[in-house]
């Protein structure tokens, strides 16, 4: 091995090969970007309300308890399909009402139960958050999660 694979050959393989894989990866990323915009998330328009909802989601760092499409902390339930679980995926008004009621009831204070904090969220933001969660739910995630439990 020492005869055929010299240090300089190993170095060239490293730089050349890495460059090759970077090029392939960038090409696949460009394709995936277009796929997301045109296909997998195209089922519902990316409205200002959805964008506002995403800001609300981020401002309160929901990801550090919940998972969204399986990513995040594993302390609280998956919310990528919460609108399906609540049966309000296609019902904007129902989605807002159930989400608003749920969040206003937190924290429950039940002993021995994980506590969701209380968040100050006005009506416009709450409607945005509900729209954002419906928007996420309608994304084509290759049939993940396996069932409504999330």
């Amino acid at each position, binding site marked *: 091995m*020492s005869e055929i694979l010299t240090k300089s050959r190993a170095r060239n*393989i490293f730089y050349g090969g890495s460059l090759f894989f*970077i090029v392939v990866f960038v090409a696949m990323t460009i394709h995936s970007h277009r796929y997301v915009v045109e296909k997998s998330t195209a089922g519902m328009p990316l409205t200002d309300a959805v964008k506002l909802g995403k800001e609300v989601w981020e401002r309160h760092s929901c990801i550090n*308890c919940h998972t969204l499409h*399986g990513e995040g902390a594993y302390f609280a339930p998956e919310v990528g399909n919460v609108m399906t679980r609540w049966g309000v995926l296609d019902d904007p008004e129902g989605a807002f009402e159930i989400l608003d009621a749920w969040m206003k009831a937190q924290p429950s204070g039940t002993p021995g139960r994980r*506590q969701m904090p209380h968040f100050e969220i006005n009506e416009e933001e709450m409607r945005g958050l509900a729209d954002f969660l419906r928007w996420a739910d309608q994304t084509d995630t290759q049939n993940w999660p396996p069932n409504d*439990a999330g």
Partner: protein
Amino acid sequence: MKYKSQKVAYAYFIVAMGLFAIQVLGGLLAGWIYVAPNTLSELLPFNIIRMIHTNALIVWLLLGFFGAAYYLVPEESEREIYSVKLAYLQLIILVVGTLGAVASYLVGIHGGREFLEQPLWVKFGILVAAVIFLVNISLTVLAGRRTAITNVLLTGLWLLSLLWIFAFINPSNLSLDKMYWWFIVHLWVEGTWELVMASILAFLMLKLTGIDREVIEKWLYVIVATALFSGILGTGHHFYWIGLPEYWQWVGSIFSTLEVIPFFAMMSFAFIMVWKGRRNHPNKAALLWSLGSATVAFFGAGVWGFLHTLHGVNYYTHGTQVTAAHGHLAFYGAYVALNLAMFTYAMPVLRGRSPYNQVLNMCSFWLMTGGMAFMTFVLTFAGTIQTHMQRVVGDYFMDVQDQLEIFYIMRFGAGAAVVLGALLFIYSQLVPQREIVEPGNDAVVPESGQA
């Protein structure tokens, strides 16, 4: 210490160890909340504690890498660091940014992309610090002797800094957001950080075993080649279920399976070098940490990663405690233990007190490693049960969590061992010990009864 400017590393390592303490204490608190969920629930909710736990980890590992670079580059390049002042300025910016981030988390000001929650000004601070670092270290390397170790180290550090650009790109389309987010998270820990890890490990092997540089550097290039060849397209294993095309299931499964290779190679490399090496280096603790790091990285990143990386498996395990098990052991083995190996090697030199009693340090290795291993096992069991109940049977999340309590109690115990080990490690680094342990002698009686 051959070069005066290596002393910069000392300050980096001290700050890194301080954040390490904060990180593990935050982790312990988060682990306690799993056991007693009402703890601090209104004062300091779980999400804030988790942000501190993960952010402190990332920053102290980076500080360790920076410090390691400032320590080893002068020796490799055979010259002083370009500017010691810039190196301290960089550290000050990072410390101010870190304290600022923690303070703003505590008052509820933060972003909401996991691990990238830092306020915008902190993100810019990190960018400025990274640029200062790259300029400083690149000018040092370019002016001096070029080695494979500095080549790979610089390639890794340049690429990881470039990827930081994606911290500023946050598309309002959630699926795009997630895709570009992985450009940092995955391409750091399963790409560029591996380059940094491999080059630091190569440096440690060079110093500790006395093996010929040619041999070590050839190994180094082979290892980092396998790391990037597998790791770049291996990003696909995060693209299965977030709204990206189906082909990632095959690309991700195949290439992320290959990600085991660089970790296996690093473990083999470390052991073969030690077996073949003739040098009997007095710093046995550094050797223990180096071999331990390579071994635990292979199990944590390699084996536990493979465990749930195939898309057919991941469909059920994605986002369960299985992921938490893997994440903890992988980070500990690959990056925590490697940093601690470097600290253990460099600190006696930086403090001018080697060789010395390292029993406490070695005890801390076994406490931490044993604790992390046990934590990984119990979380894996918890994740397996969770996967079955929630993903196969379809039970509701909170009902499943109630069934996992016993594992969370055991995880807290394991975490307590890790915290003890971490504090013992820091103590052993900072508080002077007796220089050399003398062979035991029964005839010696302590003077006036003092132990």
